[in-house]
């Protein structure tokens, strides 16, 4: 057991670093710097670069388009992309429905959907939560009734992230209202351009349009778009949630976040000294680094277990809880660091507006990001639910 990178790993690190430097889209970098909201095309620009290189889905098995990287190489990859401030790829296709399809799908479904997820041709969204079914997801009421070789779907989903751009959505629907809650649910792939699908924006506290309500009214979905067996969709749902939870730890991005907080606190003045030299502020950053290191090594141990054949299990709830709390703490310290300039509400440059925004660049989005990041302890199964999972599944209580 050791922590060293092999010469091959170091060579890989150099290769990755050079690739990012040469290929990360410059326009995207400029928008990130200005704190502008990113468009669908912005997200896809980096996705396509990686798709062409064959690096878009490192976690996938090689036969479906994965990279075949070792856990160490994947670790290097996430470190390097975070270090270079690369945007996070949309997870709905790559990290969520993709693994469900290659794990539970038919050969036809794999051939039809997986290549388009990799290429970025299809943008996916997730139809899980409903207004009445959040933490209690299995109580969902969106109904799918069989009609020949179609299902007719009616219901409402909510918190559907980036559905405004989506070509396809994966939906949990109730196909058997008689069965016990978890046993009457099916996993359907829905073409978002189908008649009867309506997407309505929900605006969040920072002013962002990320999430949506999705209404389904007599939407006809071919039976061939069902993944796995009818009424057995909960199996796919649970598999996906466990997958979502591990990615959610966001260790590499949070490490980069710590560097950024330090840089901001080095630029901000606290009397004659920079804020980072204020022992009280400095200590808070250090405590965050401490927690982050504990999370990092917990994740590395978990990944080592996964590569030894143990899939992500209920302990991934730990990663979700600590990862999300650290992400929130980072935004909190950033807002504290920027002082008065947390107050101005800056929403990116309007068309033709070149006037410099108020205060330093790093302060523009500090408050909206803090507000928005409260979502991390709520989504992907709230942290209360994660603690229930640990209590029940890990501790046997």
């Amino acid at each position, binding site marked *: 057991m050791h922590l060293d990178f092999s010469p091959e790993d170091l060579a890989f690190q150099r290769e990755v670093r050079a690739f990012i430097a040469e290929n990360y889209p410059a326009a995207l970098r400029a928008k990130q710097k200005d704190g502008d909201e990113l468009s669908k095309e912005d997200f896809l620009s980096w996705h396509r670069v990686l798709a062409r290189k064959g690096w878009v889905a490192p976690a996938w098995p090689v036969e479906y388009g994965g990279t075949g990287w070792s856990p160490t190489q994947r670790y290097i990859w996430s470190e390097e992309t975070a270090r270079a401030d690369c945007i996070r790829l949309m997870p709905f296709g790559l990290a969520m429905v993709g693994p469900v399809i290659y794990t539970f799908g038919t050969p036809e479904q794999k051939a039809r959907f997986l290549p388009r997820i990799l290429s970025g041709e299809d943008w996916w969204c997730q139809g899980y*939560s409903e207004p*009445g*079914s*959040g*933490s*209690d997801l299995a*109580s969902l009421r969106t109904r799918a009734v069989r009609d020949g070789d179609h299902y007719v779907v009616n219901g409402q989903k*909510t*918190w559907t992230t980036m559905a405004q751009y989506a070509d396809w959505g994966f939906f949990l629907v109730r196909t058997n209202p008689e069965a016990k809650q978890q046993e009457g649910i099916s996993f359907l792939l829905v073409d978002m351009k189908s008649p009867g699908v309506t997407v309505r924006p*929900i*605006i*969040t*506290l920072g*002013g962002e349009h990320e*999430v949506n309500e999705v209404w389904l009214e007599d939407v006809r979905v071919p039976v061939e778009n069902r993944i796995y067996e009818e009424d057995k969709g909960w199996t796919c749902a649970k598999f996906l949630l466990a997958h979502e939870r591990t990615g959610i730890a966001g260790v590499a991005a949070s490490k980069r976040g710590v560097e950024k907080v330090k840089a901001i606190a080095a630029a*901000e*003045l*606290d*009397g*004659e000294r920079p*804020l980072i030299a*204020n022992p*009280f*502020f400095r200590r808070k950053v250090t405590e965050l680094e401490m927690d982050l290191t504990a999370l990092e090594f917990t994740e590395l141990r978990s990944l080592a277990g996964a590569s030894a054949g143990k899939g992500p299990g209920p302990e991934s709830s730990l990663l979700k809880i600590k990862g999300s709390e650290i992400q929130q703490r980072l935004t909190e310290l950033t*807002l*504290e660091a920027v*002082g*008065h*300039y*947390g*107050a*101005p*509400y*800056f929403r990116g440059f309007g068309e033709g507006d070149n006037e410099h925004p*108020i*205060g330093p660049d790093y302060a523009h989005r500090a*408050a*909206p990001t*803090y*507000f*928005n990041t*409260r*979502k991390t*302890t*709520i*989504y992907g199964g*709230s*942290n*209360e639910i994660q*603690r229930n999972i640990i209590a029940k599944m890990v501790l046997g209580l």
Partner: protein
Amino acid sequence: MDFSFTETQDMLRDTLARFLADTYDFEARKKMLARPEGRDPGIWKALANELGILGAPFAEEHGGLGGSALENMIMMEELGKVIAIEPYLQTVVIGGGALKRAGGAMADALIPAIIAGEAVIAFAYAEPQGRYDLANLRTTARADGAGYVLSGQKAVVYAAPWASHLLVTARTGGSQREREGVALFLIDANLPGVVRRDYPTVDGFMASEIYFENVAIPGDALIAGGIDLVEQLVDEATMAICAEASGVARRLHEGTLDYIRQRKQFGVPIGKFQVLQHRMADMFIEVEQIASMALMGTLKLDLPAAERKAAVSLAKAKVARSINFVGQNAVQTHGGIGITQELAIGHYFKRGTMIEGQFGSADFHLDRFEQLTA
């Protein structure tokens, strides 16, 4: 010792609460924010003329109701309950506080104008480099004949776009962080050379960056008292936003309590889950302590400076910590809906968050307390 309010104080609270219940629900507030000027000036006029309560903390000789900081506390707590975007803090608490100390012709002219709802004052004290140090000033007021010439930049001046007057801190001497040489001026907001960039703030207010480009101001704009007076005014303002936080926190708690009673998951109202019951109990504890600290600090505002500052710092540090806890947990307990613009709860959270840092973070005030009591 007596913690009871007078009949007049109870009446002041009831009058304001009833008015705000009629005029300031969440939907009405949303419409105010959407107006081009970012507020409904009719509300301020109504507070002045229909209710006649903008005079609450002013002496009767100026047409006021003869109250003091306790009246400001009552007003701010009620305004906090509706997350009001009215310039009461800036105009009455801070501007009015300065005028009371200034006395003379300036007070005789402007206090009645405040009470009548005609004068709105914004407090231009913060600077980009200064953080929470009130003496860290680059803005200068250079003596020039009988008057002064004002030059410099002020950061995030709340209510400035609405203001008829500006209360400005500037150096008449001394080096950048020296206490000596700090002076306070009350000037017309529209003097030549006063340049503003206006913008909304994340908590629903309007604010400005203000650039003083060699602004000629009259000699009688100076309010004597220097840094000591500025500190006194900011301590009074700090206690006013602690009172506001009390109103904000109470609504965050009540709103969350309502929500967990009606929101059902797993077949029961989620308020039945013990983990949420304990959280609501913890929030309740913090809400009560915010109210206690708001009162404690307010009652000590007239003590000698060192005692006053220590009390205010302890109060503000505790309020900052507590409003953080209450706000974060209110949002968390609401789940996704707590993060949307659609529900009031998120807007209370935003105002509560900005109160945390306003006039000094918890760290700043704990530090100030330790220095004063070492």
